[in-house]
């Protein structure tokens, strides 16, 4: 029994590096392309390593004790009234407390460091992009560049991106795992996500919170390019035949599972705030 279960565990254990080798870069959280994602991944690995210090002995003890003390062929003496041991209790209260203290300090420091609302320091000036989760698409508004994009996000590399996020839909969650963690997109509320792409590429983004029938289709590509490419794309968007203001926004906000990307000229610079305060204006 012990051998078989040990084998099962071993197989699962081997599957992990095999998976990593096979899927490689597809494993967004482990192979991030931006500073925030990298920090978060490193924290994951450190805490994981700390936990293994406790977990591995537990597994070893599980197997060893099951083997040594099995009733049909025990390998050690029988002591039916051995019910406590002060030293043992000290060890297994003490070690976890120490471990927890270390992880707690790490948690405190890193939670402040990696607060999604915290701007990223960089020699490059940050770009502000306003995001609206719709049913069931993502609208990206570039207020300073006066353009907007549906289901597609283009950013220059090595530039801090400050995403201001709201929703005209049920609670969603904006997640681009290759760049960093997620944050909820909620009606009437504005959240912020500060990200940066340190490599060029196409990164998959999606909604990570169920928001209705078309929720699984709420994917978009985040394209990180050179500054020149990005400027070219902005220029292209500024010449778009489609415009985005109140009326065209109302049409856009209707429930739709259309996956097409579109770009707009932004004719209502205050659109995001209007959407944010939509329900307050109704009263």
């Amino acid at each position, binding site marked *: 029994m012990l051998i*078989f279960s040990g084998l099962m565990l071993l197989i699962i254990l081997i599957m992990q590096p095999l998976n*990593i080798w096979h899927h490689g870069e597809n494993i967004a959280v482990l192979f991030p392309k931006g500073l925030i994602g990298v920090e978060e991944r490193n924290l994951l690995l450190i805490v*994981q390593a700390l936990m293994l210090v406790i977990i591995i002995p*537990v597994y070893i003890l599980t197997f060893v*004790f099951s083997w040594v003390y099995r*009733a049909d062929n025990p390998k050690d003496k029988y002591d039916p009234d051995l019910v406590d041991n002060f030293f043992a209790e000290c060890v297994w209260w003490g070690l976890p407390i120490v471990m927890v203290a270390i992880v707690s300090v790490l*948690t405190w420091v890193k939670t402040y460091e990696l607060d999604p609302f915290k701007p990223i320091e960089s020699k490059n000036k940050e770009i502000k992009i306003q995001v609206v989760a719709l049913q069931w698409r993502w609208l990206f508004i570039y207020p300073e560049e006066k353009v907007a994009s549906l289901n597609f996000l283009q950013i220059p590399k090595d530039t801090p991106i400050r995403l201001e996020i709201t929703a005209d839909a049920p609670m969603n969650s904006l997640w681009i795992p290759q760049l960093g963690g997620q944050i909820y997109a909620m009606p*009437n509320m504005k959240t912020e996500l500060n990200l940066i792409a340190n490599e060029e590429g196409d990164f998959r983004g999606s909604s990570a919170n169920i928001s*209705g029938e078309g929720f699984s289709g709420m994917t978009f590509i985040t394209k990180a390019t050179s500054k020149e490419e990005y400027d070219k794309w902005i220029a292209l968007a500024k010449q778009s035949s489609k415009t985005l203001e109140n009326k065209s926004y109302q049409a856009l906000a209707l429930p739709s599972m259309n996956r097409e990307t579109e770009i707009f000229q932004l004719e209502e610079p205050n659109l995001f705030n209007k959407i944010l305060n939509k329900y307050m204006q109704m009263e």
Partner: protein
Amino acid sequence: MFGRLTTDAFKHEASQNAAVFGMIVTGIALIFLITYFKRWKWLYHEWLTTVDPKRIGIMYIVVVLVMFLKGFADAMMIRLQQVLSVGDSQGFLSAGHFQEVFSAHGTTMIFFVAMGAIFGLMNLIIPLQIGARDVAFPFVNALGFWLFAAAAALNLVSLAIGSFARAGWLAYPPLSSLQYSPNEGVDYWIWIVQIAGIGSTLSGINFLVTILKMRCPGMTLMKMPIFVWSCLCSTVLIILAFPILTATLFMLAFDRSLSMHFFTTDGGGNYMMYVNLIWAWGHPEVYILILPMFGVFSEIVPTFSEKRLFGYASMVFALIFITFISFIVWLHHFFTMGASPFVNAFFGIMTIIIAIPTGVKIFNWLFTKFRGRVHFTSPMLWFFAFLLNFTVAGMTGILLSVPPIDFQVHNSLFLIAHFHGMVIGGVLFGFFAAFTYWFPKFTGYVLNEKLNTAAFWCWLGGFLLAFMPLYMLGFMGATRRLDHYEADTGWHSLFIIVAIGAVILFCGALIQFFGLFWTIFDRKAHLDQTSGDPWNGRTLEWSTASPPPVYNFATIPVVATRDPLWTLKHAEEDPQEPEYEDIYLPKNTAVPICMGFLSLIFGFATVWHIWWLGALSFIAILLCLIIRLSGKDEHILITAKEVEKIETSLKNKRALNASYHLT
């Protein structure tokens, strides 16, 4: 006249129609069988109107097994859809239907399988382990069961009439508000959970009083079996947490039925408040589920290591510590909702702290085995499976409690893998262990060991295959609850492996069901040939016959130590001849099942806005209560002579069983 109920409510997709057809056929077959064997009177007198917790416990388990099948079917559908629905294929479930399936899966498993399992165990085991004849409030206990059963019935009705919620097992607004979920689905969910929740609260009160007030003489709190301690802590959590759920569900119901503005997007509503409230209940809830299972293992490991539990006081302290801390961790369920780093870090650290007592318990169990004699019978196999699967899930829980890590894996399949590890590895395996351990006590038969072992392998291996790859999928950006994904994500191969694991789990469940039937079918070979103590037990329940007589103990035991039966077995004096006395037990009553049935009607009527029916059934419930509370305390009397007769016949039966063993 019928509210918003129309014939449209009866039209479903093919798979749902099949399920409904199956339910109806099963129902008709049952009615036919009961009529054919002329068992209606027996059913009514022995089961439907009983207040005997041993019977009520068995009824809980029956409902649990039925709902387990339903929840499992939901799970298979989810995994099948996710294997098929890649790229251009859309699978076999529409998006909306898929969302109903996973919402039903979670609701069924948590509220009916897990909660039912722990209440079933409490009913069966607690009175026996504390040397009591009954629970504190037999009527309330029975009512708690029938409300639970009514909610389960409403859950099944929602499959047949109308559709279920599509907003997940916790139905967050604004998605669950009238604005985005106008139809009856979320209302079904509200009333199913509300009725079950009220049942849980009542049962919780009952068992808390039972444990605190009805222990036999000499059994101080620090001499109770750890299972009883764990149930004590669990009932404290139930009493403190469930009212939050009750209030929150009412507020959501008011939003939807009376157009109020608690959690709406307009009118000043605050849906983030719902998230806070529901998890203020939700986190204690998961501890309500796991603590009794920790208690189960604390009974099983000493028995099958032939050794006392290591570190009793430490275990008790750990239980109490967990109980308190479980109320200050709830925000870790929504680190990504945008709270300040101070708030996030505080709750993260609190969550990590709660891992300490759980780890301590694992060490205590391991060191119970140290220098013991370990027997790997079925219950111990399930403990082993628990250690392997629960521990890794606990570890990933620590990862999830660090907010910046959680930002990357929240709501992904990584989260799914973690909590299924806790619920399957902890709660379900604990239940399987308890089921195999205590089955002989309540039936007089031991479950087939070979089939149990086969089931164990399926569950251990199937679980690893079905849930370990999910961690990797979460890292690959796979969100939970997706009914479709693109081919270039690279997730497909892992989803296939996961589905294979699910099939293996299903085989395990099938083997268990078959094992149950086989044990009953081939009863003679599975007879418990000891005098009701097949495992050489240490606690009081093993001193009774299998099944125990209705009064549990002819004379109330007097204890002086922990593991009182162990002490008795190794005592030097011979046990004295018992002096029998008259025993009063509460009378059967039809009021709980009536109130349960009326609650079903009430829930259904409210869901479909059939206001006149809702009002009528509510008034009828009140009338039932008034009738019940207007009577005198009724009881049945078993005279000392009758007790003596029963005890003598039980003794003879045990001698007969033992003699089978010798031939």
